[in-house]
């Protein structure tokens, strides 16, 4: 690990103070008890959903080791790489993109330290599609609620999926319950998330998201809720899509 740090800081393009800053941010992103605690708690349920959906789609042995071997995965809005690194360890060839340059540097720096093989780009999904890039699996997890134009975003994500591939989107529903739980509860009462993390008016209902996906020629095959279990302090799949939910679609 010490050697990796030396190699990186020796590079001509990144200055030392920046590296130190990215290291601190990476530690923040990856500290399971830190500010990203909620995302860490959320990670197992969405990872297992993605893994099992891909394994079922490509008929992979559900109990084997490298279940995503040979699949290309694009994580749109990758943040600090919390999804990218585990998916790469399951054998996938992972590309993580984020419009925020800091996030990309943080994710890149962490992957160097952890030894994960992920390629990160400071780019938008629209730019990748313009280049003609496409992937077996495209993920947009907890991103839709932050974009300015949902339809344009869904269109770009859909175009990034190879024919025969999968699109997985996770977001927050626009319901009274999500206002109570995700905004008042998570941001103001429990302080799980910084205030202002989410804008309720930007939340998208499953019907709106699915019709947008359908207009781009993909077939929605699953819609599932994710709920918090206070006893186990964990998140689990549920038929209740009132707050957090995920949508799975096939591209013919």
């Amino acid at each position, binding site marked *: *690990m010490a050697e990796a740090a030396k190699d990186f800081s020796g590079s001509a393009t990144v200055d030392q103070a920046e590296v130190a800053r990215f290291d601190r941010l*990476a*530690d923040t992103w*990856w*500290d*399971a*008890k830190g500010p990203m605690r909620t995302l*860490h*708690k959320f*990670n*197992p349920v969405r*990872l*297992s959903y993605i*893994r099992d959906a891909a394994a079922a789609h490509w008929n992979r042995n559900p109990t*084997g*080791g*490298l279940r995503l071997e040979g699949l290309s995965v694009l994580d749109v809005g990758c943040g600090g790489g919390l999804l990218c*690194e*585990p*998916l*790469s*360890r*399951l054998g996938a060839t992972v590309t993580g993109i984020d419009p925020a340059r800091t996030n990309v540097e943080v994710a890149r720096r962490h992957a160097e*330290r*952890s*030894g994960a093989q992920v390629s990160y780009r400071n780019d938008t999904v629209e730019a990748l599609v313009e280049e003609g890039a496409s992937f077996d699996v495209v993920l947009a997890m907890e991103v839709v609620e932050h974009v300015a134009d949902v339809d344009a975003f869904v269109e770009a994500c859909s175009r990034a999926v190879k024919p025969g591939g999968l699109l997985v989107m996770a977001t927050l529903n626009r319901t009274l319950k999500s206002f109570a739980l995700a905004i008042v509860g998570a941001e103001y009462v429990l302080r799980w998330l910084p205030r202002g993390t989410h804008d309720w008016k930007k939340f998208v209902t499953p019907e709106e998201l699915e019709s947008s996906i359908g207009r781009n020629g993909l077939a929605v095959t699953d819609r599932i809720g994710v709920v918090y279990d206070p006893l186990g302090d964990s998140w689990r799949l549920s038929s209740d899509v009132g707050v957090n939910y995920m949508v799975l679609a096939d591209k013919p």
Partner: protein
Amino acid sequence: MARRADISNRRFDVVVAGGGIAGFTLALALKSALGGRLSVALCDPALAAPARITRRAYAIAAAPRRMYETLGVWDAIAETAEPIRDMIITDSRTEDPVRPVFLTFLGDADASPFAHMVETDRLTAAVREAALAAGVVPFASPVRRRETDPDGTRVRLQDGTEVTGSLVAACDGAKSRLRDLAGIPMIGWDYGQSGIVATIGHERPHEGRAEEHFMPSGPFAILPLTGDRSSIVWTERTDRVPMVLSLDDDEILAEIEKRFGLHLGRLTLLDRPTAHPLSLKVARRFTADRLALVGDAAHVMHPIAGQGLNYGLRDVAALAEAVTDAASLGLDVGSAEVLETYERARRPDTIGMAVVTDTLNRLFSNDLLPVRLIRDLGLGLVDRMPFLKRRFIREAAGSEGLPRLMQGLPL
């Protein structure tokens, strides 16, 4: 040298410190999962030598036996394992001519045994051999120091080798160095009692019956071994132990006979007795940054209910499960999440059993007339025993709360 450098530069998923039964079983369990994809190192100076001969025996309950079946090592142990088919418990003083039996666990001929008596040496050899064959990487030196950073943890061994991993499992015994380095205190007390352990031969077969006689100085247990042999655990006040151990074979056998009784005929002493001080200790926490305490490193119990090793093996099964579940999602196996899952699975369960063993010992290691009267009224006591009976039976049946390996399921 070159080869060693290659190995020590490798990063392991899990570094196991300590090559006792718990350490090797954990290493083997981890290699049995996910097609052997987890990398596991095991550090113990004993790896440089042939396995130590201890001549001790442990009761392995049904749940850990299922784990050993799942891990494919039970067959290697089975031929020296004696099933316990029946258990009786009496309340007695050595001079009592008749010992009232007030609790029996009648062996059901068709059901599987409560437990097996397993010889430690055979069990250790079997798990050691299986773990090494499964690809566990051995380092024949003990852990001296440990450092942790956000990405991993590194141990320095006594011979200077450094081994890096995502998680360190401290299976280094009751005097765990890793636990001390992490500053985790043990809470508990010494009983002022010692367990005197010996192997006894007898004329008549024991027919798979285990006996526990509650005597004023503490319980005297007779546990069936293969052939016409039994293991005895004679609990004695520690201040009397030097006197007992100074007796010659004939004298000591006479003392054992007083406690053992004559129902199995003439007794012979098959090895010199050894004494082990008894205490109850539970670690304040079972985890620290990228560190999990397992087995005796986490808890030392009174052997009154024969649960010390079994609870250590439950730790093994729970930790192997938490690590495997994280790895199957590509997640960091040494993360705070994994450690929290382990702590939550094991610490309350351990404290529960520690309280049961402690209460039993305080109730029975006692010759005060009022306490004996209460005990010997019997009825009240038998009424109060069903919780213990149920516990044994539930253990044998394997309830749903158990880790997957203990239910006989693969990881």
